[in-house]
């Protein structure tokens, strides 16, 4: 029985690689390299990330997971010493081509950071600001969207009465959910998450995980996590990065089942079993 399962999996994998239909993928990343100054941090990563599913990026500390994530919405622009080569395609557009409309691309790709990074304004202002910047002026529309998105992240009851108090007075878990709300309010197609639960207690972590499971029908989620158990719980696909002589390389990728149960590479096997 188990053997049969395995064979099926292998077939599926095979089908995946042959049936390389780009419309199934949100991101097609080809030969991506990233340097800070003269240090190469990510070397030659090629990876396709399927739509409407959760892709986990796992690997040891310092192997370039955060940097990789920042390539997907070109947040690398903020660092002057950072240079990127290769291709990151979202749909048909290469994020790194000079003709790309960055505002549009970044609006399509929301991002959640390791630490909640709300602005030092009120809860309301945090949500209103991105909306207004993207041309939503109608007060009633703004109000509805804010309420809607706060309900989606399960924060509405908790903050309904204090929408105009400083966002930084919320607890860490609430702040992270508010960050998620702020991301969702722009109606992105993708949500990048960089260890979104690493600063949270188990209860808040569970809430975020539940939210991820709810969201994945409508969004493509790429999540970096150090928590292998978490990756097992939530991911459909997994990419395993490793630090090879100071450079981050992609060792293995595939469905969650394949990576966790039938890893091909011995590094992968060692890594995914170290936490279990």
């Amino acid at each position: 029985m188990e053997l049969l399962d395995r064979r099926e999996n292998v077939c599926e994998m095979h089908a995946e690689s042959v049936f390389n239909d780009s419309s199934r993928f949100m991101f097609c990343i080809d030969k991506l390299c990233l340097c800070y100054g003269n240090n190469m941090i990510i070397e030659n990563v090629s990876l396709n990330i399927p739509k409407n599913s959760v892709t986990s990026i796992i690997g040891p500390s310092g192997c370039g997971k955060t940097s990789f994530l920042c390539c997907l919405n070109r947040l690398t622009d903020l660092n002057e010493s950072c240079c990127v080569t290769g291709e990151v395609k979202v749909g048909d557009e290469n994020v790194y081509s000079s003709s790309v409309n960055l505002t549009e691309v970044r609006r399509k790709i929301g991002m959640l950071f390791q630490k909640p990074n709300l602005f030092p304004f009120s809860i309301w202002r945090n949500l209103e600001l991105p909306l207004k910047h993207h041309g939503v002026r109608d007060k009633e529309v703004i109000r509805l969207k804010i309420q809607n998105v706060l309900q989606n992240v399960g924060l509405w009851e908790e903050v309904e009465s204090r929408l105009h108090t400083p966002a930084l007075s919320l607890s860490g878990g609430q702040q992270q959910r508010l960050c998620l709300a702020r991301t969702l309010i722009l109606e992105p197609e993708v949500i990048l998450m960089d260890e979104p639960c690493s600063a949270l207690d188990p209860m808040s972590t569970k809430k975020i995980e539940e939210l991820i499971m709810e969201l994945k029908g409508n969004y493509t989620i790429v999540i970096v996590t150090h928590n292998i158990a978490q990756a097992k719980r939530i991911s459909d696909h997994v990419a395993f990065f490793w630090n090879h002589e100071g450079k981050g390389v992609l060792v293995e990728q595939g469905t969650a089942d394949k990576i966790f149960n039938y890893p091909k590479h011995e590094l992968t096997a060692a890594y995914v079993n170290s936490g279990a």
Partner: protein
Amino acid sequence: MSEQAVRLERGSHYDLDNLATFIAWSGFIVVVLIFVWILGEILVNGISVISWEFLTESPGNAGRSGGILPILVSTGVIVFICLAFALPMGVATAVYLNEYTLKDSRFAKFINISIDVLAAIPSIIYGLFGFVFFNNVLGFGFSLLSGGLTLACMVLPFVIRASIDGLKAVPDAYRESSTALAMSKSASLFYVIIPSAMPGIIAGFLLGIGRALAETAALLFTSGYVDRMPSGVMDSGRALSIHVYDLAMNVSGGDANAYGSAFVLIVVLLVVNSMAIYIGNKIQRRQLR
């Protein structure tokens, strides 16, 4: 090592400790004493002069009698002109340096050094520069405008420094999240970064006011020292600190009113400085969070 030696060694440590404590404390006490003495002298001698009439009348008899209203007006106008130029320029320079230039580019380094040099130039030099440039080259003559602009040059490096500090205190996370929210650089500057840096910018503003209020030398050459009510920004007028200087040094029998004017000056300065400290504390508290 024998037990006694150990004790001795410890003993000498204690002595050293005590000495250091003594030096630190006496330094502290001397500073406080000087402060209290100056303040006390001015408060005690000045407070008897203060009255509604003193604040609302023109000076008479070269300042020996009457009040300081025209001087307050001139001072206000000079400080206003100074800040009207120094603040926008200072904040713009700080934004440019901190947000647009590469951190270790030559150009940024050059501007940074220039700012430090400008901050270290004695005010009398600014006065001479203002006299040559604003009064003569630009033909503003002895006027509140020349004085205000000269002070603006003088205050500018401090406003820039304070604003840069304010901007530096804004965590990079704000820049990252506003970029990730697809906000343009200018929008994130105006709606996120500058509002977050506001405490630092306000502290720079208050520091500027403080320095402008306290200035004498740079104003002697530029806005003049006639003590009548100025008729406009192109008229000359006397600033408060010059008034104090003039009454104390040049007018015999002007001591009482000199103390009175000094009292007013000190009260305004104290208020401005404590606001700056209060806001400075606020910044620090935010950084800790």
